[in-house]
Structures are given as C-alpha cells and as structure tokens.
C-alpha cells in the first residue's frame, strides 16, 4: 500500500530524519493558518496517490497566507489522473543549496534490500541511473544484521560526496534503511533530500510503500498515521461486484474466492480458479476472441453456498449472457461442490443451467460426482483431456453462437 506524502513525511520524521515544518490541511482556512505560522513563502502540494502533480498544477507557490489559502482552495478541487486529493501539504519554501536522492528498495534477484544514493536529486532516479550512472551509488544490505552506518557511507561516497556533506547524509540513508526494514516497506524514498544554505539536510519529499502482507504486524504505525484497516489504497474504487464478492468470501471461512471486474466489460462471465489457472484461462478466453466480463479466483475448498454466491454475482453483472466455469486440475477444491454451487446459482436466478453454463471444465477431486450432477441438468462436463485452451474456446464459440 502506498502512503500519501504527508504520511511518508511523518514516517521519516519518526525514524529521526529531519523534515521541514510542514502542515497537512483539508481546508483553505487551515492552509492560511499554517502559512501564517510558517511566516514566509510557502509551497502548496496536492496530496494524491499518483505521480505528475507538478505538471497537473497540483503544486503551487505562495508569498502570503492569503495566496496560500487561494491556491489550497483550487488544489483541493483539482482532480489529478482520476484522483481527488485527500488534502494539501503546506511547506516552507526551503533555501536549497543542493538536492540529493536517497532510497532503499528490494532487490528481488539478490533477495535483500538495496540502498541507492545520488547527488542529482529532484528528478527520477531511473533517469539519472541511465544518463549519469556515475552519479548513483548502490549497496546491498544483509537481512540478518542491523543496517550499518558504514554501508550508507560507502554508498554515498561512490557518488563522490565527501566532507561534512558525507558526514551529514550518512545517518539519513542508514536510518532510511532501518525504517524500510522496521516498517516492512517495499520502497522508501526521499527525493529530494535537500542540503540547505546553512549546511543542514532535510527531507523535502518522501515516498513510502508498505507490503500488504505486513499490515497486521504494523498496526501501531498505521493507527498512529490514522490509516483505517479497511483503507486498502487500491489504485481504483472497488466496484459493486468486487465489494459483494469480498463480503461473500469473508462471511464463510471455507475456501477463498476473489473477484475483480475493473477493466473488464464483456459478455462471458468467468467463474474460474486457482492463481495460475485463472491467469491462464483469462488469456485463453481473450486470445480466442472472447470478452470476459470479470476475473475470479477460487482457491481452497469453498462451500456450496460460497461457490453459489460467486456464480450469482457473476451472473448478475450487466451484460453477462453465459458463464464459463473452469479451473486447472484441482486437488483441494472439490469438483462436486463447485458444480452444486453453480447449478444452485442458476436455479435461484431462474436460469436454465444447460443454457447458462457455457462450459464446465474442472478436473480432479470428486470429478465423478461432479459430472453426475452436471449431467442431470444438461450441462456439458469437460475432463482433463479437454485442455484449458479448448475449454475456453468452447465457451467463446457458444457465446458467439447466440444471436445478439
């Protein structure tokens, strides 16, 4: 999950990294008061979870508190890349001598954190790495020992930084590395890290992302930041379908079902499963000219009512004409239980299973029982000898055979 800039700054501050005397505001009046407190020129920055703020007009400078309020009012109304801001950050306009970049990311191949530092801050680090590789210092960290200061010092020195600048920047990068580990961040970046005219260093912007799997054990910091447990920070608002599937899943502990329909708008509903199987089947439908109405994942061994609930939600979606029920060979999920659930969903919605289920391809545990149930309702059952590709193709052919 991604944090807003004002949250990221608070995290950085907690870790002992100096920040400016900023204020987070949700109204123009608050912005005026913060600007008065600061007592000089300020920057007003939109708080949105998307890039390109500057270009979109989400960052403005003000010389007086009135001007700050005026800009804040405008920015609070400004939508950026489909996102409305959560508020604005009012920050003193810093007297910057030089901008640096400090970051810590995961190196998945080496399976450990990687520290990055550059004396060319304020721009995209990937661009710097490409055009000025000698201005980027790198260093891996052990997972088993506390990130040591000397590693940060080495990384910074690789960029040619020396003297009091090296001494001042070292603890900042080391603290960032510890913060990244302690708070389970997948990304911890300060850009720009500024050296002010008086020689001191201060974080002018920060970008933090926390691993979702770690949220349960990071409750304390999330509570402190005011992030609610149900604030998932998805890149888009969950749809009705997505909310309903989630509700069905959490109402019953047996098995796991997930559903997404963001970006899908077809006529073939997919009741499909297992992580890799769902990816494979969605591709197979699309590659053969089919238009999926949604994406789902069935995992574990769901109950009949859960399978039924999922099938119903898919069937109720606008534009869905038929559903395809498909999985890779299952060992945990029971074929007969999914079959019962799907048939029940059709009947309860007053639909003929034989017409509604374009294809049912789930081979594996309890397949004989599953086949019997399906056959008694006139639904075609595909064994493992029918490949995932062929099953998807049959579903597409059936739906295309229906007159519009």
């Amino acid at each position, binding site marked *: 999950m991604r944090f807003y800039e004002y949250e990221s700054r608070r995290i950085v501050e907690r870790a002992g990294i100096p920040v400016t005397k900023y204020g987070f505001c949700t109204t123009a009046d608050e912005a005026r008061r913060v600007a008065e407190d600061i007592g000089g020129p300020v920057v007003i920055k939109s708080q949105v979870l998307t890039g390109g703020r500057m270009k979109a007009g989400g960052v403005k400078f003000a010389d007086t508190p009135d001007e700050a309020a005026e800009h804040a009012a405008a920015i609070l109304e400004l939508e950026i890349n489909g996102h409305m801001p959560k508020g604005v950050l009012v920050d003193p306009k810093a007297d910057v001598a030089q901008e640096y970049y400090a970051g810590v990311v995961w190196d998945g*191949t080496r399976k450990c954190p990687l520290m990055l530092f550059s004396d060319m801050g304020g721009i995209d680090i990937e661009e710097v790495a490409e055009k000025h590789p000698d201005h980027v210092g790198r260093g891996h960290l052990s997972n088993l020992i506390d990130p040591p200061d000397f590693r940060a010092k080495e990384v910074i020195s690789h960029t040619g930084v020396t003297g009091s600048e090296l001494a001042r920047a070292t603890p900042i990068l080391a603290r960032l590395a510890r913060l990244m580990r302690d708070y389970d961040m997948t990304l911890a970046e300060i850009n720009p890290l500024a050296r002010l005219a008086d020689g001191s260093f201060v974080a002018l912007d920060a970008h933090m992302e926390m691993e979702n799997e770690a949220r349960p054990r990071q409750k304390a910091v999330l509570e402190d930041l005011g992030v609610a447990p149900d604030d998932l920070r998805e890149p888009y608002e969950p749809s009705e379908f997505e909310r309903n599937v989630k509700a069905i899943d959490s109402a019953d502990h047996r098995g796991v079902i997930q559903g997404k329909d963001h970006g899908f708008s077809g006529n073939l509903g997919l009741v499909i499963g297992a992580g*890799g199987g769902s*990816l494979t089947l969605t591709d197979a439908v699309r590659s053969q000219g089919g238009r999926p109405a949604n994406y789902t*994942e069935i995992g574990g061994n769901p109950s009949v009512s859960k399978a039924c609930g999922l099938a119903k939600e898919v069937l109720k979606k606008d534009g869905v004409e038929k559903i395809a029920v498909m999985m890779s060979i299952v060992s945990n999920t029971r074929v007969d239980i999914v079959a019962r659930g799907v048939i029940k969903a059709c009947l309860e919605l007053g639909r003929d299973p034989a017409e509604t289920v374009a294809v049912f391809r789930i081979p594996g545990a309890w397949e004989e029982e599953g086949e019997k149930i399906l056959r008694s309702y006139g639904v075609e059952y595909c064994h493992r000898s029918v490949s995932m590709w062929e099953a998807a193709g049959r579903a597409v052919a059936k739906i295309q055979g229906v007159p519009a």
Partner: protein
Amino acid sequence: MSALLSEDFTFIVQGITGREAVNLTRECLDYGSKVVGGVTPGRKGREVHGVPVFDTVEQVTESLGYVPDGSVVTVPPAFTKDAVFEAIARGIKLVVIVTERIPRRDVAEMVELADRNGARIIGPNCLGVIVPEVCKMGGIGGPAKDAAKAYTPGPIGVMSRSGGMTTEISSTLTAAGLGQSTAISIGGDAIIGSTYAELMPLFEADTRTDGIVIYTEPGGRMEAQLSAWVAENDSRLPIVAFMAGRFMDSEEMQGMSFGHAGTIVEGKEDTATDKIARLEAAGIPVVERIDEIPDAVKDKLGARV
C-alpha cells in the same frame, strides 16, 4: 537419483496438527513418502496418521537418532520465520514452506540464514516437490491416487510459480507420454527460496532429466535471471516456457495485481511481453497454450539428438 528427493528421503511436518497439514501428511504417507515426525508446540505425545508429534525439532532428531533430510512448514505466517529458523538450526537441509502471505522481510531473512547453513528453501506459498513414484513432499498433486493420475516418471523437469499449474502441466506431459523427473512448485511470491536459475544446476546434474518446462507469470525478474543463466552456462537441457497473465499487459489493467503476490508488475521489464522477448532471445520458446507444451518439448529434445 533425482533433483532434491530420493527414495530414502525423510522429512518432518512442522505444524502437523493443523487441518491442511493433517491432510498433507496422509497424502504423502499414501504416496510412499517417509514422513518421520511432526512438530506442533504443546502437542508432544500425539500422533497424526501414525506419525509421532513433538514440541520441538530437537526432540524429533533426538527421538530418531538422526537429522531428517527435510521439513514441510505449514504454520501461520506470523510464526513461519521462527519455525524455519528452528529447522535450519537443527541441521535440516531442505525446507518446503507452504504458508502464504509471509512478509518479504521474513522470507529474505530465512533465505539468507539457509544460504549461510548450506540449506535450501522451496517456497513460500508453494505446494512442494514430487518425484513420481518415489516421493511427494507437500500437497503437490493432492491425494496419492490423484497425484498418480497426473504425475508419471520420465525425463522432464517441471518448475512452476503456480502450484495448481504444476499439476496441470505435468498431467498434459503425462498424457503425451512425457513423464517427469522432478516437479517443483517454486512458489508465487515476490521473493522465494529457489528460483528457476537457482534450481537449474540440480536438474543439470540429474542424469534422469533431459529437458525442462517452466510456468511463468508477469512480475519479478526470475525469468530474466533464467535467461542470463542460460546465456552464461552451456546447459545440456532444453527449456520450454509457458507464460500466463498476458492480459495484464493491456492498458486498463495497469497497476493491478492478479493471481499471486509476486505478479505485481513494478517496471516495464517485468511485463509478460518483455519476459517473452527475453526468454525467446535466450533460446527458450514460449508457448501460448498448455497443450502446445508436449510438442514444443519433443521438438527441442529432437533437435538435441
């Protein structure tokens, strides 16, 4: 000898009294695997399908008089790191982690500790390893009779980021007369104990393996690492790949994740399109359909003769 497991391979199950673990133990025993002990703190003295349960791994090794070869770890995410540390500290050399949703930091710590102790981790978020008709370590393939339907002995090594697709692919190979030497569900997370490239030397050294099939997904750099490994090593083993999740490349899916935790695309280099190009440049054909795999493998094997 096969990669990872042999007929004499012994292993324990940590978290053995959990619901899934009880099933898994039954399945492995039925398949003929040597499950020699189990651990659940506080449950010493019980039995699970005849397998004695202990409080600690140390007690298991004391009772056996030797250190078992492996451990299947299936405990809740918050306790997994400690369980794996315990297994490694007591000298176990192969740890299969079934547990899902373990934070990356914990996985990285476990892997580094394993490296320092000459141990290997498979997973997390995986179904384990199977050597057909020899040993099944984990839930891979399900109940023994189902596993026997999908997996048969033969010359193909299978590695897959998806547990279910390991079985689907092996079943497809079996139907085409191509058995498997060892099939490994490597796990679906962003950081895993053993990647394709890290497992290749084991298959390379396994005289029963003549070719490799991998199942891949968007996200991460594991496929790039494999491409680099192939370029740097004069491997005797042809590789065929299948890539799922091509639809994630389309504009409207940007920033979304599907399937496994590891499928989050973080840069332009880990999209399906980029991975396919990279693998093919390394001489690894990427098929679009699972049912095209057997012919692609036969082509490759034929080309080597």
